[in-house]
């Protein structure tokens, strides 16, 4: 773990965009008084002609971005995920996704990153809302490597993309980042046959910590960074469903409609071995031990991001305990 070098994914977003903008004058960043929270002030200073400010007006932010993209600009529309994917949801649905304007919609300080600022500033609905919208890739990079790759790939992809970033420094998940990063291909961080922990965004790191803790009790976990929520890597899901006894999903999102339910839906329709029906998996090997860890459907507990994570078991101990209880250990 390169803990000393851990940066917030948002910082990596900003520096990567600056690197890319040096060679591409068509890159445009659009902000809604969000250049500070998006760590984009340096971008704006270096590339003032590639930065459009619309003020605090998220619907307009997305509509204007769609117009810019339709005229050939490579647009990153950046605003806190809570406002961007709720207030401007119709603009994302119609102006970006339905009209197929390849805007990179970037939700910053996502999930419960804003902690004690409360539910107005939390985005626990964005995966659910955007999963139900056709023609947009939905991704939450976990570490600095994934962030950098996701931005480069989003730039090359002539397609609507939603990227979701938190603001906490994120340690590297692997010592060697030699993988190929592709949207729709989950990243296997460690492999083990007892349980698969499928996490996304800033919850992958505690999932990895939980796997290390479980190893001390001779439980071998596979940890997957499922950075792309849509399209979901169902091939990888099938692989772990065949070999592991249990699957636990972890996300900084409502338990309703996010990564967990996306996995559950696919498993229910494709992998369950139900008495009297034929499993698509040889021998019906997987019995369906499954648990979604996320934010429950209640008034979210108050406190910092870490307080909220701890409260709902989105940490090393909580994830490990969930695995143990599923496996009856």
């Amino acid at each position, binding site marked *: 773990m390169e803990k000393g070098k851990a940066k917030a994914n948002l910082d990596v977003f900003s520096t990567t965009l600056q690197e890319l903008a040096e060679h591409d004058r068509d890159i445009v960043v659009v902000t809604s008084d969000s250049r500070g929270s998006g760590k984009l002030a340096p971008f704006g200073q270096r590339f003032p002609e590639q930065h459009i400010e619309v*003020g605090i007006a998220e*619907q*307009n932010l997305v509509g204007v971005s769609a117009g810019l993209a339709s005229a050939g600009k490579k647009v990153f529309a950046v605003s806190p995920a809570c406002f961007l994917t709720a207030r401007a949801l119709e603009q994302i649905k119609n*102006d970006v996704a339905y009209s197929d304007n390849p805007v990179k919609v970037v939700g910053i300080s996502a999930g419960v990153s804003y902690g004690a600022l409360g539910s107005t500033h939390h985005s626990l609905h964005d995966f659910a809302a955007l999963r139900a919208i056709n023609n947009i890739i939905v991704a939450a990079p976990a570490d600095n490597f994934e962030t950098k790759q996701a931005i480069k790939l989003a730039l090359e992809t002539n397609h609507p993309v939603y990227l979701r970033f938190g603001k906490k420094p994120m340690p590297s998940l692997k010592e060697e980042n030699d993988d190929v990063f592709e949207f729709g291909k989950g990243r296997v961080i460690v492999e083990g046959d007892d349980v698969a922990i499928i996490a996304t965004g800033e919850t992958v790191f505690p999932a990895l910590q939980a796997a290390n803790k479980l190893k001390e009790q001779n439980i071998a976990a596979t940890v997957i960074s499922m950075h792309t929520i849509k399209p979901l890597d169902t091939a990888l899901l099938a692989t772990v469903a065949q070999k592991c006894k249990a699957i636990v999903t972890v996300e900084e999102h409502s338990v309703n409609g996010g990564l967990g339910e996306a996995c559950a839906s696919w498993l229910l329709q494709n992998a369950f071995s139900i008495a009297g029906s034929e499993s698509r998996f040889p021998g019906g090997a997987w019995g369906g031990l499954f648990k979604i860890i996320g934010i429950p459907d209640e008034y979210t507990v108050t406190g910092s991001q870490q307080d909220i994570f701890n409260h709902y078991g989105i940490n090393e101990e909580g994830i490990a305990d969930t695995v143990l209880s599923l496996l009856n250990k």
Partner: protein
Amino acid sequence: MTEKELAIKSVEYRKNILKYIFHANAGHTGGSLSCIDLLNVLYNHVMNISPANFKSPDRDRYIQSKGHSVEALFVVLADKGFFPELDLHTLCKYRSHYIGHPTRKVNGVEQNTGALGHGLPISVGTALAAKMDNKKYRVFTLLGDGELPEGSNWEAALTASHYKLDNLCAIIDHNKLQITGPTSEVCNTHPIDAKFESFGWAVRHVDGHNFEQLKEIFDAIPFAEGKPNLVIAHTIKGKGVSYMENVIKWHHGVPSEKQYEDALSELDNAMVTVPDDF
């Protein structure tokens, strides 16, 4: 195109709007008839848009924010040769691209619209891109007066002015009626001109059925350097068919066979009476 030629075109367009709405048994009749003269002048006199240049980055752009008046747009696009007019026989039919709002699956349509309050922000972005690239194209967007309460319009109006988008022209089809009743009674937006002027726009009023005035107004763009342009076109909902004019039920009313034939006769008579010196 002369005013007389435009007038004759509009009669043909109105007949086609009614034809396809009648055959589809669906459509937004009143609003299509109120804005058709505007589209006629834009496509036949003002804008540099044709099937030949539609992929060119330098073409003018037309984005119809009041997407429900799609029949007017389809009839004009067919006339301009973007697709065979026969295609419109599939309007609103199973698997047809010719649905009740503009979609880019139809050649000649710039943006998918239908939800109100979306055209202006997209147009602002498109006009902004022209300024950033030093391109000369202009962006025209048609709004309904009933959609003005959508807040996104006013957000976009601010941005247009902030970035001095004098290459943007918004046109309000001010027919003064919406599905519930007179716009002034549903949510009074008057004075529209003073509101936009206070937002930094240059505003002109025009009779939206007077070809001479329409040509003159659009030829005068930009009205003021560095200011976005607004044309408030005073129109009549259902214009051209006397029993539809200013009658709310024709917002999306479909004529019966008898009503359809009566409307065609009235329009044919109008064709005969277009004066030579128009």
